[in-house]
């Protein structure tokens, strides 16, 4: 050891020299690595950008594809929400969806979708509450009978439809709703043609008195736009009777 390092002051000098050259070497190496990493990152970014640009219609339109895409991003350690600007990475790649609220919503919705089978009510409530400030349309609504349901059709399930859902669940109704039922007056009392166990089904708490136009619009929207009910054109009492599928009872 003594021989290798020398003796006396010369050893100190040599030590300093060695340390210095090691430092220089390590700096050079780090620089090279960083440059390399930068190059790789740029390449990867370009590839990801190209991918996102190529599939942007699919990313925008197909929730499952978007889910897969964000899954892929997270598996390779890219957070689509992170980025130099507030809009994040999405904003760079697809400027017209660079809405931060929207992106966060996408991720939370993805969580909800991917854990749909597993998460229980508390999780649902928590997730949906998190989404609430984003006004994305995900809300927990409580029906008049205390039942809770998640409104997952953003901006499509309006208050009128929520009332109809509750109304359709009314006792003896089993999902059957006609425009006449909602307009109220005489038709509300004689609204069940097929059920024997419910002669009169006037329900003070749930009977609605709407204009014909409002009732028709709400029911047709549920039928044609949202697929929340089925239509029956062979009912004797009304030309069109709507059956809210979620309120129908199956043995």
């Amino acid at each position: 050891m003594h021989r290798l390092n020398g003796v006396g002051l010369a050893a100190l000098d040599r030590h300093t020299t060695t340390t210095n050259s090691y430092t220089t070497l390590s700096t050079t190496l780090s620089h090279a690595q960083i440059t390399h990493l930068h190059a790789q990152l740029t390449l990867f970014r370009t590839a990801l950008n190209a991918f996102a640009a190529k599939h942007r219609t699919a990313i925008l339109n197909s929730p499952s594809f978007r889910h897969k895409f964000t899954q892929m991003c997270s598996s390779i350690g890219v957070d689509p929400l992170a980025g130099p600007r507030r809009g994040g990475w999405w904003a760079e790649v697809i400027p017209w969806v660079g809405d931060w609220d929207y992106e966060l919503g996408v991720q939370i919705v993805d969580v909800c979708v991917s854990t749909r089978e597993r998460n229980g009510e508390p999780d649902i409530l928590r997730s949906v509450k998190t989404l609430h400030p984003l006004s994305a349309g995900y809300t927990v609504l409580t029906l008049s009978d205390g039942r809770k349901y998640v409104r997952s059709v953003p901006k499509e399930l309006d208050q009128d439809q929520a009332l109809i859902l509750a109304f359709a669940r009314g006792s003896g109704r089993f999902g059957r709703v006609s425009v006449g039922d909602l307009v109220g007056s005489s038709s509300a009392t004689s609204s069940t043609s097929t059920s024997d166990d419910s002669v009169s089904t006037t329900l003070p708490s749930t009977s609605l008195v709407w204009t014909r136009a409002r009732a028709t619009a709400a029911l047709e929207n549920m039928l044609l736009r949202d697929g929340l009910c089925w239509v029956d054109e062979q009912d004797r009492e009304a030309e069109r009777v709507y059956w809210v599928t979620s309120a129908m009872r199956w043995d």
Partner: protein
Amino acid sequence: MALSTHTTTTGFLLPSIHSAPPFFTQQPHPSSLSIATEQWIQIILKYSRHRRLFTIRVEDSETTGHDWDEVLRNERINRKVLPSYLSYILAQMVSQKLAAYEPPKQDRSVLIYWRLPEEWAEVLHEWVSSTGHLNTIMTFYEITDPPIESPLSGLPIPLLRQAITILSKTNRAQIIAIADGEGVRFFPSTGKA
């Protein structure tokens, strides 16, 4: 009025959706329509298998007193499938290869494949082998109307023809011209098919 299953007079178990009034109307929403139509197709296939029915016509929804009454109608709730919807259902069956328009070039009547032609081919060959008719010439009539009822009794000729065509591709059958029309000769499976 919860929706429940129902057993018909011929012993067929109708699913509970068959007691839902809107089931008999063609739904305007695409996903509702496909759910309902899929259910109808299953009911039609199962019922035709149950009754050994081979044909369904659009007009079966308009008339009564025929084989399809208890399926196309529900007297308990006073509903029946409307012809336009039945026509749509049959078209879907044809496009899914679960039925074929018969006679061809019209769309009012279909031959139902409650067994696929490939499955009929196997049933046919098995029956021929087990009854000792291999290598002999048989008429179509001998196959579809045998003295002892067989799995092939009542098989419509177009379906029989398809089955024979399938068998002839693996050299297990051959159509032969005979005095009063056509006959068919069957051969044992070679194993290499």
